[in-house]
């Protein structure tokens, strides 16, 4: 290989800056700007990977990331495309999918036994006898390995960002650039998405300079720009018979200058946001486009979309068309013009259209030894092109084809072509020549990059007469520009971009200087109608990803899979990383012929997102885990709390080291039972109901009677849903005639609040409902000495039991802070719930701890609270209830008003009450030394599951294991024995016990 770097060749590489990386352990020298693939080719390393099924040698096909032949991996990441992976110093790259070494792949034996691996053999070979797939799966997966994930690698920082614009232009080639600039000049905000690191698209590599009418004895000599040649570059081995001309340079220079000016204008435009190295990976409704860019997933929201996505060049199907060295014409153009890599070995071009002639001219003029053009047609459509080719001494074989590519020396890289003439039916006839050849560039045509359009519902049509594609039925707001719309000549492509912008701007109601579209008529025929050359020995690949040959597709149709979708699923054609970019059209042609239909009738397989493989890390993005902290969070940490999640909240589980857990919980419980404890209950839901109809609203919503609830009193509030299921509970404090403050469970408050708004939208009562969970924070000071603590702190109300009795509500100033005080007994001791505006809970906590130090106040956590409430037999909605629990099952009948005309769920509760219970929540006891059941352990009766444990703890106060469990109603009486299946299938026999387990007369909480 040779390297050149001048105005027209090697545009993306910096000849003065070298990079070194390793491939398969061998050091590779490249240039800054190289892709790994281009640098490898520059080092004569065409073999870069192995194929999926037969482990055949593979090298780059498209050189633009559109094929799976360049899948490589780095130590951190598998399945990278070498033609999209920038070469850089210290990079370590390996090939994939080989056994042994890339060069001597033991699994290549599969290729020799290909006849035993026919299409669909997976389905036939591995599904009988039943269950055998479990045996074969790991073997098959290993054999078909696509790289190795390094599980030790720390995930990169991925994130997501929204991007908003009027018009999204997908594709930064001549059509996209013109569309973006035209729309931006008309006032639209534009996001221009380009897959490559450089704008320009085909302007960067395609030899438009040879396009008629531009063609005018156009030959560019690299010698004229030798001053920028690299150290190892060599001049062209052949400059052609014709002399270089000023006209030639002018044609290409003019295009380059035009391109550069266009790019500069786009990049400088304040209305255009350019996203380079970015892939628009799908189209979703309302122009919602996921764009992958580096480690970021951009969620692009546009009002209009212009697809200037270009087209995928199609290959010719002949024997060994997958040999490294066989490439698309556009790949050779990219290799020479973008990277300045000029093949030293003889080059041939297999032409199905005039584009291939331009590749031949371009490569020749870049210094390649282009020996021949093998034209599948009777000749070039453009006589001027033919003349230019002949003038350079390149032989043209008309109406001929490559019957076979061969690798005589190594078996791994192209070295020879067998050229045959085509008969009237398009089949190979007599042999014409054997050509020494190191690189074969082929072009059978271009298929629109239709995927995004078809994801949006567009239909891809095909004219069997002209072999042209047409996308139709585009969704509103989607426009096409350039070769995706089967427009190929440069002037028409550029005009189509401007037309698309104009249409998009019209849809945005923009004022335009002209409504008239420019002429984009393009008569160039780019698609050869039948680019197949069948060989008796096969290996004519239709799908490179899946190693599918002509016979595989035909066999699928013979087996009855006539529909293209079924052919796809049976043969796996188009299911590889290329997603049918190159296989869809030949498959459709083969199926059409085999089933005696037109290609248009046969159609192509459905295009679905994503367009390209996308890392799961990008989809995950930056992982947001919203955490709620109470204002006392840092104080808990200071006290040594072990925090635990409670929904989104962080709550103290207990105070002490993990090793001290049990002792800490027991000490906290003891403090509450014998002295005083304090717990942060700021997570408790709080809802404020204000207005003339507040009492009526409460009465309709909750099961109890609230209409006559006295001011200054609290009342237990149970909420059932319309099915009569217990949905939440809390305490309702009546602050005033028209003012309630209601608590709800930590995890349920948002749902309760939402339900309240919903019901009030129906009832239209005059009540204001506010979720004040975060506005108020609260602590519960509990224990026989709690009153003393509050009294010593300085409270401006009488705390005596007569004046402030159990279940009363008071407003007071405590430590100077206006406080809502409730006497509640969740933990079964004298206790006060103190609710204050959140910014002041910190100081209240500090003052309480100071005042309580005399009484040995101790902070207690959720674990101790759970045990304390369990000793009292209090249920926790959500833990001791489930989505089916009705009030009768959990002994809440007392909390349901009997004389109310209505409450939410009343009718269902009534119906359920009349039916026999199927289970009952009861308390149970076990000896202290018994195996301790856990939440969820099953209750067994006569071998059947009748219930489960919902709560269970060892109570140091009672010195026994206590719990709550659903049991059969027949076993719900006190003293009944129930069987609980604990860990390791150990059955324990518990006794049903009355609740509360502790202080059954509830004397302590009423002190």
């Amino acid at each position: 290989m040779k390297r050149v770097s001048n105005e027209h060749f090697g545009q993306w590489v910096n000849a003065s800056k070298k990079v070194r990386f390793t491939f398969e352990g061998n050091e590779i020298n490249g240039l800054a700007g190289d892709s790994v693939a281009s640098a490898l080719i520059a080092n004569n390393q065409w073999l870069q990977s192995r194929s999926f099924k037969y482990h055949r040698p593979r090298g780059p096909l498209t050189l633009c990331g559109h094929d799976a032949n360049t899948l490589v991996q780095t130590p951190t990441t598998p399945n990278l495309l070498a033609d999209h992976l920038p070469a850089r110093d210290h990079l370590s790259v390996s090939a994939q999918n080989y056994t042994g070494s890339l060069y001597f792949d033991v699994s290549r034996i599969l290729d020799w036994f290909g006849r035993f691996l026919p299409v669909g053999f997976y389905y036939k070979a591995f599904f009988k006898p039943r269950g055998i797939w479990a045996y074969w799966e790991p073997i098959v997966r290993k054999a078909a390995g696509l790289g190795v994930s390094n599980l030790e690698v720390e995930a990169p920082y991925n994130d997501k960002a929204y991007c908003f614009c009027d018009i999204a232009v997908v594709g930064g080639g001549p059509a996209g650039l013109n569309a973006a600039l035209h729309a931006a000049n008309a006032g639209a905000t534009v996001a221009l998405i380009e897959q490559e690191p450089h704008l320009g698209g085909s302007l960067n590599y395609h030899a438009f300079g040879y396009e008629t009418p531009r063609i005018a004895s156009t030959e560019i000599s690299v010698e004229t720009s030798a001053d920028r040649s690299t150290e190892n570059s060599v001049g062209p081995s052949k400059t052609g018979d014709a002399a270089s001309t000023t006209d030639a340079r002018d044609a290409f220079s003019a295009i380059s200058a035009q391109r550069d000016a266009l790019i500069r204008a786009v990049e400088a435009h304040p209305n255009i946001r350019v996203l380079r190295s970015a892939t628009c990976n799908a189209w979703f409704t309302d122009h919602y486009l996921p764009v992958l860019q580096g480690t970021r997933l951009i969620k692009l929201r546009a009002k209009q979309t212009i697809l200037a996505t270009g087209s995928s060049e199609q290959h010719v199907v002949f024997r060994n068309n997958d040999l490294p060295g066989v490439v698309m014409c556009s790949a050779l153009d990219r290799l020479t013009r973008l990277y300045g890599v000029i093949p030293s070995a003889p080059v041939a071009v297999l032409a199905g259209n005039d584009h291939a002639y331009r590749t031949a001219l371009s490569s020749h003029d870049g210094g390649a030894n282009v020996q021949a053009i093998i034209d599948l047609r009777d000749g070039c459509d453009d006589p001027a092109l033919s003349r230019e080719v002949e003038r350079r001494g390149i032989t043209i074989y008309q109406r001929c084809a490559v019957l076979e590519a061969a690798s005589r020396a190594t078996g791994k890289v192209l070295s020879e072509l067998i050229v045959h003439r085509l008969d009237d039916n398009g089949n190979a006839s007599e042999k014409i020549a054997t050509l020494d050849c190191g690189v074969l560039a082929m072009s059978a045509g271009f298929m629109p990059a239709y995927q995004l359009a078809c994801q949006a519902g567009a239909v891809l049509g095909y004219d069997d007469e002209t072999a042209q594609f047409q996308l139709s039925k585009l969704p509103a707001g989607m426009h096409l520009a350039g070769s995706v719309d089967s427009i190929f000549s440069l002037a028409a492509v550029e005009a189509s971009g401007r037309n698309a912008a104009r249409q998009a701007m019209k849809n945005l109601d923009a004022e335009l200087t002209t409504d008239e579209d420019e002429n984009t008529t393009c008569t160039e025929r780019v698609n050869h109608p039948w680019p197949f050359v069948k060989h008796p020995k096969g290996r004519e690949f239709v799908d490179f990803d899946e190693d599918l040959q002509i016979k595989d597709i035909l066999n699928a149709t013979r087996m009855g899979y006539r529909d293209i979708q079924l052919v796809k699923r049976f043969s796996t054609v188009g299911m590889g990383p290329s997603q049918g970019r190159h296989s869809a059209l030949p498959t459709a042609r083969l199926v059409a012929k085999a089933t005696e239909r037109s290609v248009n009738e046969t159609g192509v397989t459905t295009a679905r997102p994503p367009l390209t493989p996308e890392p799961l890390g990008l989809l995950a993005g930056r992982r947001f885990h919203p955490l709620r902290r109470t204002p006392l969070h840092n104080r808990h940490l200071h006290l040594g709390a072990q925090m635990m999640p409670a929904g989104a909240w962080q709550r103290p589980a207990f105070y002490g080291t993990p090793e001290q857990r049990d002792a800490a919980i027991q000490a906290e419980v003891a403090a509450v039972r014998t002295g005083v404890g304090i717990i942060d209950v700021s997570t408790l839901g709080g809802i404020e109901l204000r207005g003339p109809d507040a009492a009526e609203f409460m009465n309709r919503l909750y099961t109890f009677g609230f209409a006559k609830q006295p001011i200054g009193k609290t009342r237990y509030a149970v909420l059932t849903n319309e099915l009569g299921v217990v949905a939440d509970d809390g305490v309702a404090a009546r602050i005033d005639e028209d003012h309630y403050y209601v608590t709800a469970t930590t995890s349920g408050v948002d749902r309760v609040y939402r339900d309240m708004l919903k019901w009030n939208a129906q009832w239209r009562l005059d009540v204001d409902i506010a979720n004040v969970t975060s506005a108020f924070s609260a602590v519960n000071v509990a224990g026989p000495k709690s009153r003393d603590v509050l009294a010593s702190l300085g409270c401006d109300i009488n705390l005596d039991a007569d004046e402030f009795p159990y279940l009363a509500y008071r407003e007071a100033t405590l430590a100077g802070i206006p406080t809502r005080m409730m006497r509640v007994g969740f933990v079964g001791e004298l206790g006060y719930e103190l609710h204050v505006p959140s910014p002041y809970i910190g100081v209240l906590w500090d003052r309480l701890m100071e005042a309580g130090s005399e009484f040995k106040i101790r902070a207690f956590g959720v674990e101790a609270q759970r045990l304390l409430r369990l000793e009292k037999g209090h249920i926790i909605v959500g833990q001791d209830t489930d989505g089916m629990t009705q009030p009768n099952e959990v002994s809440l009948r007392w909390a349901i008003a009997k004389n109310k005309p209505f409450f939410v769920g009343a009718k269902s509760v009534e119906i359920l009450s009349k039916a026999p219970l199927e289970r009952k929540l009861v308390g149970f006891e076990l000896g202290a030394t018994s195996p301790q059941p856990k939440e969820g352990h099953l209750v067994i009766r006569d071998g059947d599951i009748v219930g489960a444990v919902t709560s269970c703890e060892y109570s140091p106060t009672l010195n026994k294991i206590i719990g709550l469990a659903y049991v059969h109603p027949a076993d719900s009486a006190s003293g009944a024995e129930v069987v609980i299946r604990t860990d390791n299938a150990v059955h324990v026999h518990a006794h049903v016990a009355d609740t509360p387990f502790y202080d059954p007369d509830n004397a302590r909480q009423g002190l």
Partner: protein
Amino acid sequence: MSEQLNNVFESPLSGKVYEGAISIQDYTNKQRWGFRGKDAAAALRAEGWKLPKAPNQIITVPGDTLIMALSQREFWFLDPSTDAPIPSDVDQAISEGMYPLFCQSSHAWLVVSGDQKSEMMAKLCGVDLSPDAFSVGDVAQTQMALINCIVARHELDGSDVFTILVDQSYAQYALEALLDARAEFCRSS
């Protein structure tokens, strides 16, 4: 005791300031109050307040108080130049048709400034907050990094800023999300 309280109003973010190309400042300890109810607008106008013309708008009135309309019947007042007062029963006194809100206690208040603040917010919020789509005086009740928030664009001391109000229990989380999003814009600062 009241004087003491003034000093112990605790913002979950401790009034922190993060300077840079994008600055984030904790205004949680600044005064704010609000009302809602069917008669709120009429009552406030009767008291002499000028209110935004439509919901989801914010205006600055003489004295630099910001008034934000979150609906036809809900109004928040933000005073960036006054520290939070001591809560009092009077503040929470209700009259029919107009109910005081608890925004002083319920929400943390962050002020974000800098030319690229819209781009930064695009990493966290699905609403287009660029100047063309979200101009001075606009308010969005939306989500940021998966939590509810109110974003308002207004001028403060002559600068174009975002006010961001989030549930106080999420304040630390929201700040961390903002700082993370801000990092790429502040690397050189």
